[in-house]
């Protein structure tokens, strides 16, 4: 009978991804409440050192699935390997971090078991042995409580930040590492080396004040309004993804998971709804201000100060007031 929790540890360039520790924390918390053992799996080639590193955590064992074809990540390679590990270990839950890599292969893996993932969860609650997962839907505007139907294994992925990596518990002694030579079929995709685009022209990570605009700004012409506010504050202008997608501002002004990560003293979000992919890039800012006409916009959940209303009314007044204060 299926039993236990298997947690997937991700790594790149010889080091473990920090979300792997968050996933371990998630799995340990589930394991404690369900009274089930937690083991981890790492895929790779010549990566046994990383498996040893994970073995320091409180786990019943670490499965290190090895094959030459797992040297570099490919969806075909990872899916084949994970399928074999899961069929051998027969866990009840498979827990993974909701990273770009997991998004790329895990749905394919789950499909091999005739199902999908309970993806991008922000928490899990257990009552009477039933796990209720919570996912954000509608770009963060609503939460949904989800339960799994049908046969194990249940595949669940957790959003970055849902659990704290530093709360993953270390074990009193190292867990056993079980090396498992794993068969991998044909790998159809050939990856080239990952790269970064030519050095970014603006580095917003050092800015003290950032005025960020979102789709609420409506048109390229209106950006001037936000630029005037930024000038009055002596700050920089930045944006959410749709603004850069539309090429109203260059991509090096984008804040978020696929843009820059910033932590200025003051972050003013104008007409930004607050999708998780944006929040991860700015949530550690000192003082966060949001101006948005939707009182339920998720950005307010992390804002210190909020104005519910039209940014086109608020921003010119705010700019004038700040100029007055600065002239004092």
């Amino acid at each position, binding site marked *: 009978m299926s039993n236990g929790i298997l947690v997937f540890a991700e790594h790149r360039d010889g080091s473990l991804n920090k979300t792997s520790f968050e996933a371990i924390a998630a799995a340990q918390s589930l394991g404690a409440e369900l009274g089930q053992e937690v083991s981890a799996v790492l895929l790779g080639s010549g990566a046994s050192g990383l498996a040893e590193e994970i073995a320091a955590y409180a786990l019943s064992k670490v499965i290190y699935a090895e094959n030459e074809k797992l040297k570099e990540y490919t*969806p075909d390679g990872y899916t084949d390997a994970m399928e074999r590990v899961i069929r051998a270990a027969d866990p009840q839950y498979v827990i993974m971090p909701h990273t770009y890599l997991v998004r790329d292969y895990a749905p394919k893996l789950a499909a091999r078991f005739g199902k999908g993932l309970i*993806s991008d969860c922000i928490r899990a609650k257990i009552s009477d042995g039933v796990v209720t997962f919570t996912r954000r839907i509608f770009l963060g505007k609503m939460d949904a409580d989800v339960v799994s139907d049908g046969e194990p294994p249940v595949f669940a992925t957790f959003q970055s930040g849902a659990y704290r990596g530093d709360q993953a518990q270390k074990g009193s002694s190292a867990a056993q590492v079980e090396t498992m030579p794993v068969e991998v079929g044909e790998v159809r995709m050939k990856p080239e080396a990952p790269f970064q685009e030519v050095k970014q022209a603006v580095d917003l990570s050092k800015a003290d004040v950032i005025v960020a605009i979102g789709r609420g700004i409506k048109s390229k012409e209106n950006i001037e309004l936000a630029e005037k506010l930024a000038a009055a504050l002596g700050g920089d202008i930045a944006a959410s993804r749709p603004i850069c997608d539309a090429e109203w501002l260059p991509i090096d002004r984008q804040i978020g998971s696929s843009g820059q990560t910033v932590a200025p003293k003051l972050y003013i979000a104008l007409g930004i709804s607050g999708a998780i992919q944006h929040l991860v890039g700015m949530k550690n800012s000192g003082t966060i201000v949001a101006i948005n006409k939707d009182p339920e916009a998720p950005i307010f959940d992390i804002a210190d100060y909020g*104005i519910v209303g039209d940014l086109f009314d608020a921003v010119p007044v705010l700019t004038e007031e700040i100029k007055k204060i600065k002239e004092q």
Partner: protein
Amino acid sequence: MKIIVLMKQVANKDAILRINKEGTWIEEGDLSFEVNESDGYALEESLRLKEKHGGEVIVCSMGPQRVKTVIKDALARGADRAIHVSGDDLQHLSPYAAANILADAVRDEQPDLIMTGLQSDDYGYAQTGVIMAELLGMPHATIVIEVDASGEQLRVKRELESGWYQWYEMPKPALLTIQSGISQIRYATLKGIMAAKKKEIKEVSPAIDARPSHQRIEKIYLPEKTKQTQFLGNGDAKAGAVALAEKLRNEARVI
């Protein structure tokens, strides 16, 4: 090159969402809808590939009659014909069930490429495309930001986290999930809108009765607030701005 683009209709981003009586989904009766953002980019990229390499673009959308708006708009922008997988409750399927039905709907077309957005703005599963690729036996790539289809093999640029990218090469047929911003989206022209009226929309009803579900929504609700936000201005944005400047100066001391 024969390209199928999967496009989903979702609630308008600016729509006020109200929870239904059962508490299991939003009230859809008086909602306005639009095309899922990244699916719009998937269509644009498909049209550009067709312009470069020739072939055909077939748009496929699943849902009740209202999704015809998405289909007609895609035809007006330049898609050649459409498949409407029609049914009233199809938009609430699990990603695995949805992928099964969509795979059945397009299998016989034997496309060279299937394109779709990287996730939907409502459920946000980010799985349907990938599962479909598995069911159809195709290789796939997700979060694609550039496509080079000029060679024998397909080359795609994938977005990785925090400003990293990676090129992948794979054989056709393949399935790609497209990231927003891959190219600038065109508007439908009047000529396009007229031409669309003559284009074929094939309506199919899902062939499988057993729609395996593996996850069930028990309830939806507004997220609990974790931070105490000070709301300023009481609905008056200008008054709020005056109060905010004062707070930033004297309370937060950031200016």
